[in-house]
């Protein structure tokens, strides 16, 4: 395996640098995916039928907590990669652990929110608005869940193997994914919640 010493370790082999590039392309596809979900949501968001409207069910407090958690987790995820590039194994693991815990916290708040909605009689089958809301938020939440599992698997690998071309490459790609989820959340925060409460 030829390793290029002039670039960060995660880019070192040709294969690994291709993986990073390929993942960026995949994120392009993810942009198209979430854009479609947004298109559906924007088309249906005021078609609430006999069910509640956006401004009736949205609550600012939970959303702010979610936003804070995800923004901070994105920050610590960036710090983890920074520490990784300096070879600080322990710091990397701690930052990743904080990142994943924040992600878990985000999921907790989101699930609570969903439970409240359903409790108040706002379910997937109540109206087109709620269907599109649940599927948009749910898809993002599913991504966070997958990210949590993925990140945990990578942490185990770093702990076992230290920083190798494999583990650093996986960590970096994971970080791209996690930051991307934060970007998507910003758009949900702005154009679903804030716009809905305006």
């Amino acid at each position, binding site marked *: 395996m030829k390793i290029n010493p002039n*670039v960060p370790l995660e*880019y070192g082999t040709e294969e690994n*640098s291709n993986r990073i590039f390929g993942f960026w392309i995949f994120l*392009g596809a993810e*942009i198209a995916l*979430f854009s479609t979900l947004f298109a559906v949501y924007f088309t249906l968001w005021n078609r609430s039928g006999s069910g509640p409207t956006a401004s009736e069910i949205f609550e600012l407090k939970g959303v702010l907590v979610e936003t804070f958690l995800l923004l901070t987790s*994105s920050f610590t995820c960036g710090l983890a990669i*920074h520490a990784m590039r300096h070879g600080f194994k322990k710091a990397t693991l701690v930052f990743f652990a904080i990142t994943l815990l924040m992600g878990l916290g985000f999921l907790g708040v989101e699930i609570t929110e969903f439970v409240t909605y359903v409790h108040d009689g706002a379910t997937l089958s109540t109206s087109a608005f709620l269907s599109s809301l649940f599927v948009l938020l749910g898809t993002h939440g599913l991504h966070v869940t997958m990210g949590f599992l993925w990140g945990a698997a990578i942490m185990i690998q770093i702990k076992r193997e230290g920083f190798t071309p494999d583990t650093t490459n996986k960590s970096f790609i994971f970080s791209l994914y996690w930051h*991307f989820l934060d970007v998507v959340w910003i758009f949900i925060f702005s154009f679903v919640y804030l716009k809905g409460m305006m």
Partner: protein
Amino acid sequence: MMKQLFPIKHVMGYIFSLVLSVVALAVLMDGITYTVGLAILLICAILQAGTQLFLFMHINESKDTKTSLYLNIAYALFVGLVTIFGTLFTMIWGY
């Protein structure tokens, strides 16, 4: 040690994104019109996305793929915006 673990660029980026989130909350105040509100949301969201892309995701760090990655994001945005606004145009505005 602290300086190495918490690089100033990351910290600034984090603070910047928190500030942008707070600024976006302004749209909930009374007296802000719908159009102005949307504009604020749009600008804040774009700046936030840019912060993530450049500061945290290092989109511009690899010389040989930089152009391809920009093109990739540009194409994705083109398709995304066409899907969103095209759908609204066909299904609502122009119906």
